[in-house]
Structure formats: structure tokens, C-alpha cells
């Protein structure tokens, strides 16, 4: 099902696992789908100069982020045999061990999802104006840098 309206990818705070279950369940009526692939980003307790990350606080240029995701989505629909695609990202504070990023693709067969999902995730990381601030135990912080 291609959808052409610009969607809001942002969710306030952590993404609850129940949202993922609900999203999966929503696909049961799409009986051409044989394979789903879900990528989840989880906040790591990285240790930097002896201090542990306890949360990441995300900010974004949300309007542009949604517009860029819309374009990336269209590119993926053109390049890969994907039936469905969903992108969600946290805004605000997400604690260690919680989920901040949820990308979901569905296709008739597994090749379609294995090719499209890494492309989609990498495109989002590279092109979407989202900024993470890593908060340490003592409430000091540093700005996250993607590898």
C-alpha cells in the first residue's frame, strides 16, 4: 500500500514495545505480505571518559524531518518491492534500554525486506535532521555523533 501524504514520524519519549506489537498486528489483513523486517534503535549505556550515559534527549527540525522521510520512503518504494513501510523516531528524553527508533518494512518475500531495510535505516540516519544529546548520570551531557 503506497501512501503519499507526509506522515509525522515523531513520538514523544520512548517507543513502547506494545506499539510495535500493534503495528505488526495491523498487517494481518494484508495477505500479500510474506516477510516483515523491523529495525529498532535502543539507547546504550555507553561509557565516555568514565561517565555513563543514562538517557538521550532528541530534538529535531520536525517539519523538515517529516518531509525528508517522505522522500526517502518514495525512493524506497521505487527501488524495492516493498508493500508497507513505517518510520517512527522519539523526540524528547529516552532512557537507557528504551527504544528511540522503529523502522518497519514488509514485502512478499524476504529478499525485498533484507535489501530495503538497511538502505532505509542508513538514509534516515544520514539525511534526517534529528539531534541526540547524551545525558550522563551527573546530568552533564555531550552531543551524540553518529558513527
Amino acid at each position, binding site marked *: 500500500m503506497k501512501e503519499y501524504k507526509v506522515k509525522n514520524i515523531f513520538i514523544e519519549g520512548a517507543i513502547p514495545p506494545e506499539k510495535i506489537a500493534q503495528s505488526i498486528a495491523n498487517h494481518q489483513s494484508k495477505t500479500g505480505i510474506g516477510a516483515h523486517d523491523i529495525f529498532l534503535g535502543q539507547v546504550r549505556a555507553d561509557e565516555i571518559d568514565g561517565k555513563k550515559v543514562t538517557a538521550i534527549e532528541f530534538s529535531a527540525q520536525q517539519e523538515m524531518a517529516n518531509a525528508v522521510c517522505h522522500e526517502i520512503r518514495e525512493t524506497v518504494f521505487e527501488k524495492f518491492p516493498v508493500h508497507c513501510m513505517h518510520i517512527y523516531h522519539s523526540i524528547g528524553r529516552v532512557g537507557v534500554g528504551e527504544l528511540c527508533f522503529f523502522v518497519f518494512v514488509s514485502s512478499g518475500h524476504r529478499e525485498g525486506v533484507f535489501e530495503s531495510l538497511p538502505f532505509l535505516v542508513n538514509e534516515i*540516519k544520514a539525511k534526517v535532521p534529528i539531534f541526540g544529546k547524551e545525558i550522563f548520570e551527573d546530568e552533564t551531557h555531550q552531543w551524540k555523533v553518529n558513527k
Partner: protein
Amino acid sequence: MKLTLKYHGRLTELFGKKEETITVTSNTAEALKQELEGLDIRFRENVYQLAQNNKIIKGNEILTAFDVDIFPPFSGG
């Protein structure tokens, strides 16, 4: 031309503000970068990108908007 610079992520800390309105003479993305880097060392010492109307702009793309986003490297995901 009056232009509102909108800072994001760590640039809001670096500049101590979320936005500021300045008067510039540039009319392309690259010219604006040069102009900003002449005005303030922080533009020379930090990696940033410009965007207008929700699109990254660079090189001789013409400035048409009143607001320009100034982005540090993205770190979502």
C-alpha cells in the same frame, strides 16, 4: 537582506541561542557560508549545513527564504 538563522542541536549551545536575525548581502548558499564565516569564528571552526524550506542547500543555490536552518551533523537513530 534580513535573514533569521535557526540553530539546531549543539549549535544552540555554541551560539547560546535558538535563532537570531542578521542582515546579509549574500544571495546563494555558498556566499552565505563565506559571509557567516567572515562574521564569526564559530562558523569556521564547526561543521554545519544550511537548509531553507525544509531542503539542504549548497553551492550556488539561491536563497529565497527568510529563515535558514543551520544544522550540525545529524545524529538520529
